[in-house]
């Protein structure tokens, strides 16, 4: 067991030495796992199949009962509270969506409010509001049935349904796995924008590393046997993989992928100054990603970038310096 450190005050979800072992199996699916997920954080669990990531997710709302350890949500030990009641307070989205085909979209969204005893007119108003929030026209969709909607639209309804009682925590099990790649990217972008507004604590499972890098504030990489190989920001995972397993799992594109996570401001500190005006430069914002800056430089056929730095005036970086700075993993830690 873990030595039970006191969770930090901004921890929203705490897994404390959690294990799951099914009777008759000698190996535990999840063994002695401890994790802390902060309030408002978007954490993605990734790993090869069978690594216990989905079991871990399903233990947070106790769809799977842990055999050992404690689970705390917002400081409250929920390991032994009533499971149904606990789940009514946690959003849950699955890959297969699981809308009830015999109910209208509005009734599907209002399922949890209905269980909580919210009045009918209020439930309806809430459902319409949520449809709007996930980008579906309420007038057009509220009274339809799930089969009349496309896969992507159904998944938006699934998200709206999970948000219906405004839960502080959302659990998502490969939510974008069943939609086609083009719709998936659109849904991901939209979901990120939505999360900026609602600031839920989100735990999501995926097997897609690109999705994890795009969406996660932090990524938990699981090795087989639920070993938490690394739990850190996407940039840190790409820059300083904890071990060979993480390096292999991330794959070969790490240096290039990093470019869209690094900002120009990140590399400025490590780059040697070049004299301004040495070549044709493109003006960029310090908050732009290095990827965006490079794109602009290459598109314009320029030789470098020019960045306005508050106290030093403007700085010029030529292409070579920019790339060298961006490829030094250890130095970008902030």
């Amino acid at each position: 067991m873990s030595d039970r450190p006191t969770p930090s005050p901004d921890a929203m979800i705490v897994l404390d030495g959690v294990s799951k072992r099914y009777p008759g199996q000698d190996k535990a699916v999840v063994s002695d796992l401890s994790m802390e997920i902060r309030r408002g954080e978007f954490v993605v669990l990734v790993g090869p199949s069978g690594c216990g990531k989905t079991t871990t997710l399903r233990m947070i709302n106790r769809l799977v009962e842990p055999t050992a350890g404690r689970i705390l949500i917002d400081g409250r030990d929920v390991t032994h509270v009533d499971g149904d009641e606990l789940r009514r307070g946690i959003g849950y989205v699955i890959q297969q969506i699981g809308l009830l085909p015999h109910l209208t979209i509005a009734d599907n969204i209002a399922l949890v409010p209905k269980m909580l005893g919210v009045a009918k007119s209020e439930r309806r108003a809430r459902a319409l509001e949520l449809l709007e929030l996930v980008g579906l026209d309420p007038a057009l969709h509220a009274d339809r049935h799930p089969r009349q909607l496309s896969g992507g639209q159904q998944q938006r309804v699934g998200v709206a349904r999970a948000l219906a009682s405004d839960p502080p925590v959302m659990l998502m099990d490969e939510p974008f796995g069943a939609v086609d790649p083009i719709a998936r990217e659109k849904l991901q972008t939209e979901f990120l924008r939505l999360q900026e507004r609602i600031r839920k604590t989100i735990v999501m499972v995926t097997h897609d590393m690109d999705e994890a890098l795009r969406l996660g504030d932090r990524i938990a990489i699981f090795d087989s046997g639920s070993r938490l190989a690394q739990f850190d920001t996407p940039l840190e995972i790409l820059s300083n993989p904890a071990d060979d397993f993480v390096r292999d799992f991330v794959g070969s594109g790490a240096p290039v992928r990093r470019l869209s996570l690094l900002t120009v401001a990140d590399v400025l500190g490590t780059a040697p100054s070049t004299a301004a005006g040495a070549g044709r430069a493109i003006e960029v914002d310090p908050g732009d990603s290095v990827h965006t800056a490079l794109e602009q430089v290459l598109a314009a056929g320029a030789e470098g970038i020019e960045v306005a730095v508050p106290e030093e005036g403007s700085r010029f970086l030529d292409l070579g310096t920019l790339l060298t700075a961006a490829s030094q993993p250890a130095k970008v830690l902030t």
Partner: protein
Amino acid sequence: MNLLSYMSENAAYLWFLTRQHIELVLLSVLIASVVGVGLAVLTQTLPGLRRALLSVTGSLLTIPSFALFALAIPVMGLGVAPTIAALTVYGIFPILRNAVTGIEEVDPAAVEAARGLGMSSGRRLRTVILPLAWPVILNGIRTATIMLVATAAIGAVVRGPGLGQLIFQGLDRLGGANALEEALSGVIGVVCVALVLDLLFIAVAKITALRGWNV
């Protein structure tokens, strides 16, 4: 005397027996539905027991109805009670079988999502499983009903109510006055009852499908 004039002369009696027949069948089907659907629900997580129940109720169906009615006599005597008991036994199998199939065919994702939203098992049954299995369950009840309309006629063996009385009385004294007409009007009555009840079930299925069985 021809068939039509026999029927018009005895219209009141025929109508009485027809209503009796319908009531007998519907009551038996109701009991069989409660038992059949109930067993299907209770054995949801016990596949072994479920299979056993299906083969037991299925093999009950192979007992010739004449024999089953006769077997009921020593236990329940003559009249309405043994007729209803025997008909219920016959009705359980098609209803149970369809209820099991219907429940098994419910999309597991819908059930899983409902559980993830914090729906209790009773509520999942009411709002997810039974409504989604309903069309298949209803079909089982319909099959049982049509089957029992025919079988109920044999109930006259144990002095059961309904149109069977006409058939058996007529056959008993075949060659006598109006014997054939009596038996034939019993048969025609049974066919009509089956048709009417079948149409009724089609209507129920249509109506419940349109409204989306939402409790």
